[in-house]
């Protein structure tokens, strides 16, 4: 099975927000980073994947199974790390290993203890009193202790200090070495993705703008800077979005070769960072060009 998660023609209308005919595939054995501005639809999409929301139309399948018939089996194989951990708040980790563990088919107590030690997590303190970093580590400990094949995380690194973030990224990489696991995580911190993401999915206003391997982004997009005098109706069409100032323009392009040919040395062409791609693609006039 190549895709762990498949959304096919999924639509969902919420009060102030709509997902319209979304298709999305998450590949097995890789880290997919899910990016987009606040309110772009990341959390809604993740809730659809976790069956916390049901689509109005279309199909969601995980491990090739549908939720209608295989909810328990799917959940057994997913570790969900949510930014506020609603399920375990008042429990301490000791309770969790006693109460939560039997619910999972593949709970590994030895593994659990190993991670608790590695992360230096207290066993007797309720999880709601944990710091943000500890909560995140605890959630990940639980996910890894029931041998989750798919780990879905909503903003796992938000609010973490740089040391904890690095530690977490190291753990994710460790987890990925056997090639069986898949990680999907949403984030604003694009530097995390620069390091570990294999695929990047960008969402804006409930629509997937792209789903690409990281190296393709580096090859396909560039930031161009130059004098506004260079811009006219023809040349503007080379850019996804243009920012103008009295001192010149900056723009994102996907037509790197054309820009080089037309403008030559009159412009500066730089590799676009994920953050820049995200910034310029938001509300862009020609997001697909």
């Amino acid at each position, binding site marked *: 099975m190549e895709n762990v998660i498949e959304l096919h023609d999924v639509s969902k209308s919420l009060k102030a927000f709509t997902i319209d005919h979304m298709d999305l595939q998450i590949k097995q054995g*890789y880290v997919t980073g899910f990016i987009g501005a606040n309110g772009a639809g990341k959390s809604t999409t993740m809730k659809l994947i976790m069956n916390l929301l049901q689509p109005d139309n279309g199909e969601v399948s995980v491990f090739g199974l549908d939720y209608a018939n295989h909810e328990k089996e799917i959940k057994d194989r997913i570790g969900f790390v949510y930014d506020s951990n609603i399920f375990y708040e008042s429990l301490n980790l000791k309770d969790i290993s006693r109460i939560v563990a039997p619910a999972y088919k593949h709970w590994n107590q030895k593994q659990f203890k190993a991670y608790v030690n590695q992360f230096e997590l207290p066993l007797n303190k309720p999880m709601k009193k944990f710091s943000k970093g500890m909560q995140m580590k605890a959630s990940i400990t639980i996910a890894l202790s029931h041998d989750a094949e798919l780990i879905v995380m909503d903003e796992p690194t938000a609010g973490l200090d740089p040391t904890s973030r690095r530690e977490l*990224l190291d753990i994710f*990489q460790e987890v990925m070495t*056997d*090639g069986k696991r898949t990680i999907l995580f949403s984030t604003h911190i694009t530097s995390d993705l620069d390091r570990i993401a294999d*695929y990047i999915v960008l969402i804006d206003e409930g629509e997937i703008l792209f789903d690409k*391997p990281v190296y393709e982004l580096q090859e396909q997009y560039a930031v161009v800077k130059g004098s506004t005098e260079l811009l006219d109706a023809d040349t503007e069409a080379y850019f996804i979005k243009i920012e103008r100032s009295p001192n010149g323009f900056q723009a994102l392009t996907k037509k790197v070769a054309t820009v080089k040919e037309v403008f030559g040395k009159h412009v500066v062409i730089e*590799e676009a960072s994920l953050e820049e791609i995200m910034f310029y693609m938001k509300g862009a006039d020609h997001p697909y060009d």
Partner: protein
Amino acid sequence: MQIIISNSSKEPIYEQILKQIQTAILSGELAEGDALPSIRQLAKDLKISVITTKRAYEELEKSGFIYSIVGKGSFVAEQNLDVIREKKLRVIEEQLSAVISNSKEIGLPYEELQELLKLLYEE
């Protein structure tokens, strides 16, 4: 074999890996049949994504430097060093021709160019 990745380099990371493994093979540091680290292990060690490492290995495989056996890993392939040397020489010739035509454009005499080359070579 040590691989050093620069995140601030203009050269894409997969190319940095590719070149360093190529150099290790061409210099004889890695011999025919030697096992390379697994793609996932290398990604973890270098703190980069799996797909970037995979891309480097795929390119190495395409150009015949390594081969992969499913479930076993990647290994250094038999190298025809003469052919590789021949190819490299041709590239060097092309690059030198470009240097010469550039020099002629600004009227740089042969002696000065030679001096410059000598300086850079010995650096």
